[in-house]
């Protein structure tokens, strides 16, 4: 199929907390800072709303990378949510790495509402990493892949 000849366009799921990172993305937009269109933002109330299963689900649905962005430690709208997210995601990322899934495919970063520039930088850097890694062949779900992606 001619589809294979097209350059690799990754799919990146970005879980952004409503109070900091999503506003940071807004600021990046209003500041006219460019970040790749392959980053699909999913708004969550808090970074600790991200159940480890959400990350697995994103990979299942064909994501090549998953990034979770939340408020800086100490700045959480719900006071302590991001501390829980930090532990949870450390263990999840470690487990994914242990199963042989490239550890560069997962990332967690803190982006505040005032950091539009950081948002664009983080997303650009992460997207570059995923481009360098290529398609995710080690973790997915054939039932969930679309005809185009195949």
């Amino acid at each position, binding site marked *: 199929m001619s589809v294979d000849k097209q350059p690799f366009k990754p799919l990146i799921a970005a879980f952004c907390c409503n109070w900091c990172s999503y506003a940071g993305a807004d600021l990046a937009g209003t500041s006219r800072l460019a970040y790749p269109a392959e980053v699909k933002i999913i708004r969550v109330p808090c970074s600790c709303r991200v159940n480890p*299963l959400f990350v697995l689900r994103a990979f299942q649905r064909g994501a090549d990378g998953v990034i979770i962005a939340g408020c800086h430690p100490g700045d959480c709208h719900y006071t302590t949510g991001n501390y829980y997210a930090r532990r949870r995601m450390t263990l999840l990322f470690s487990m994914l790495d242990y199963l042989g899934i490239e550890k560069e495919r997962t990332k967690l970063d803190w982006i505040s509402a005032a950091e539009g520039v950081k948002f664009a930088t983080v997303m650009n850097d992460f997207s570059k990493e995923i481009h360098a890694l290529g398609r995710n062949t080690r973790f997915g779900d*054939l039932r969930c892949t679309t005809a185009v992606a195949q």
Partner: protein
Amino acid sequence: MHNSSCTVKETARKILESGQAERLLGWEQDSSGYNHAPAVFKSAGELDRFIYDRFCGSNLSKLLARLREAEGRTAVLLKACDRESFNLLVREHRIDPEQVHRVDIECSGMVDIEKLRNKGIKGIREITESGDELHISTLYGEKRCRSEEVLLEKCLSCPAVSSADAFDAVGQMEERSSLERYEFWKEALSTCIRCNACRNSCPVCTCEQCIFDNPRSGTAGKASADFFEDQHFHLVRVFHAAGRCTDCGECTRVCPQGIPLYLLNRKVIKDINELYGELSLEDKELGKGALTSFSFQDAHPDIIRKRTGDQ
């Protein structure tokens, strides 16, 4: 029959005769002689079926959670590895300690029948024990085997039985390259037949409704179409037990496919020990598990990326 079996049976008899408990959770003699199942004994007379030998691997703590609604006290026999899961279930209010008569019993390690079979010992009729040796009467004659060679995986790192480090195998796995690990798990996990035995036997899995039973998930009661499904199943299972798993080794023991599931559970425990301090489940209030608490100094997940030895 070795000595400890008689004393345990005697203890069980005393408990039931004196009425200290309405019922006793123990193990029932199986016709095969090596596949003893957990059973409830309601009177001393029923204890004829009772057995405690080197094939009583099953953890009785989980059944205790199921007997929570039963009236009267339940006596339970707990081996060292089962006590941890008992403590966890008490901490999570799955067991009412007031309703339980707890009997701690000694254990010198349980035997893995699969390891016996892998040594070429087949057609097993009866197994007796003397000292460190197992005398196995098979259809093809008498066989002998040192019991430490055929212990269950969980017993190999039990402080009461052996001095081996539980995390050695995990450390070795971590040292392999990412691709090697991927290939290893692909081979190991693709043998999964999704029998759910690991979940059913797990003392930590006490949810009344389980996501793996959801008929709308498209995965319940169905063999995997590809390796990814097994990967997801085991990741989800491990994560539901993360921070609560007591490494009782039930999942590995019951797995009909011999998948080394303990490598997954111990990885989580090892990470918790290294990053957040020794995982301990005893004498802790609810809400103080590794994943239900935090400290301001916790490491950022980027430390996983900074680990050496990739690709």
